[in-house]
């Protein structure tokens, strides 16, 4: 668990529109990498291209490659379904399956793998995943209740439990706290700190304090104007990006003098 990601000359298109251009990025295993930048700069698009989720939108495609520990995720014969089983994702808004109980939500991914599991092994997996997401104590007495009955922060942690239950190598988070209150945000940030012991984490965030708090490395994306492609301006250790970035644009953005 916890693999390295390497993007090489990555261009991402929606139809004929070039959304993100020329990304070269190395993400080290078992670290937290934050992607920051203004809205529309392509950081979410880039994140979604790492587990090939952006392909869900008709016409979306990439050129270049993304390698997971040396294996090209866009190589010939690579099944995007297999990629997504290795690289988990947590979305902006909590999205537990409303028709499933908390218990079933956690093992939803495991069920897909068609592994027949004994009841006690499943129970064990559910407990381990929920403990891993710091949610166990809050829900252990109501595992059979619907996941949509939880609070927003709890739902988001349930989604994290669901993502880690399939034991992925990488966890992608697309603004996981943007719909949450500060207390729930803190709970998720604490959780991210614990999860990086086992997983490589990439997180998109609009909150620069959050990027500074949780990440080891930070990548700054920017866009020159509407209709132009987003680009990775600079990537370095988080404290370097926030104290002495090499690019003027990065300094303007992190110091709030953007625009």
């Amino acid at each position, binding site marked *: 668990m916890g693999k390295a990601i390497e993007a090489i000359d990555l261009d991402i298109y929606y139809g004929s529109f070039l959304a993100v251009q020329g990304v070269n990025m190395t993400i080290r295993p078992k670290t937290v990498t934050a992607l920051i930048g203004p809205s529309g700069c392509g950081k979410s698009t880039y994140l979604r291209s790492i587990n090939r989720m952006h392909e869900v939108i008709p016409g979306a495609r990439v050129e270049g490659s993304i390698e997971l520990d040396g294996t090209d995720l866009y190589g010939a014969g690579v099944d995007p379904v297999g990629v997504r089983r290795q690289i988990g994702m947590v979305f902006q808004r909590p999205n537990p399956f409303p028709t499933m109980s908390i218990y079933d939500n956690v093992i939803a991914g495991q069920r897909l793998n068609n592994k027949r599991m004994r009841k006690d092994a499943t129970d064990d997996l559910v407990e381990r995943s929920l403990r891993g997401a710091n949610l166990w104590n809050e829900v252990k007495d109501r595992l059979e209740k619907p996941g949509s*009955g939880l609070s927003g922060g709890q739902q988001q942690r349930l989604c994290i439990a669901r993502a880690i239950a399939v034991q992925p190598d990488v966890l992608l988070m697309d603004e996981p706290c943007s719909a949450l209150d500060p207390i729930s945000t803190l709970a998720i940030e604490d959780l991210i700190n614990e999860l990086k012991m086992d997983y490589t984490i990439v997180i998109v965030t609009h909150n620069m304090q959050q990027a500074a708090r949780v990440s080891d490395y930070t990548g700054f994306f920017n866009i020159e104007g509407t209709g132009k492609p987003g680009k990775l301006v600079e990537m370095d250790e988080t404290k370097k990006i926030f104290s002495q970035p090499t690019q003027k644009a990065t300094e303007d953005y992190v110091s709030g003098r953007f625009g």
Partner: protein
Amino acid sequence: MSTDTSPGPAPAKAPAPPSTRPVVQPGDRIFAGSATGAGILILVVLAGVAAFLLIEAAPAFVAPAADIPGGNGIVAYIWPLVFGTLLAAVIALLIATPLAVCVALFITHFAPRRIAQPLGYLIDLLAAVPSIVYGLWGVAVLAPASVELMTWLQDYLGWIPLFAGPVSATGRTMLVVGVTLAVMILPIITAVSREVFLQTPKLHEEAALALGATRWEMIKMAVLPFGRSGIISGAMLGLGRALGETMAVAIILSVSGAVTFNLISSGNPSTIAANIALQFPESTGIEVNTLIASGLVLFLITLAVNSLARFIINRRREFSGAN
């Protein structure tokens, strides 16, 4: 709270005390009134129909058994009709529901957009075809064409009571009626299912895909559970139409009044609606009351079916995603 404690009468020129009634705009009042009126009207109509059925059917329930057509009493008269009605509707539903769900899924999740849209319109168009046209198609095309298939069914699956035979030479059988009704109710079930499938939150579809679900697994995880109540509602609408269908059944089915599960022979029970249509012009006195009594039974069956559907939908409301 207030310090205004002055006793005694208010000064003579004081404005009238503010009314405790909330301010209501005339537009609001008109709209509320007309909406309430429409709601009451539908209840009055329903009550009127029920009262008519009860009053007109009553003589048939109290009449001596020998006076009822057939001579064996009201139960013996209506029972084969109830059986035929349910049998035809259930066959139609069993064929149409899975097919409609598949068509709806194809339109919403598999077809390219430029095919999906015209196909959707086409399905809606099918729903507008009058049932007499389906009936004519059933008797003129489907019935003769199905004789060969039914012979095959009898030869190879004859050990199943459904296909015991002997095969009807004209093909005017319960099976053909069921298939015709299925075609008739297919559009309505498809249209309702398609609407709900389209409303599946993108968020949940992406959640399933991000877990490594294939397209079919995503549909099983996110789309079908979300659309479940919609599928049931659509099926119930279709069932309602199949139960009440009159002309198509009256034209196609060759009737003997036998209560049998044998779907491919020429001896079939009629259905309530078709029986009323065929018998009513030549009925007088107690015969009319008997027909209306059968109509009352149909009314109750439809009511029961709808309540059952409502119950099924509500049972798992907590998990519906509506909260």
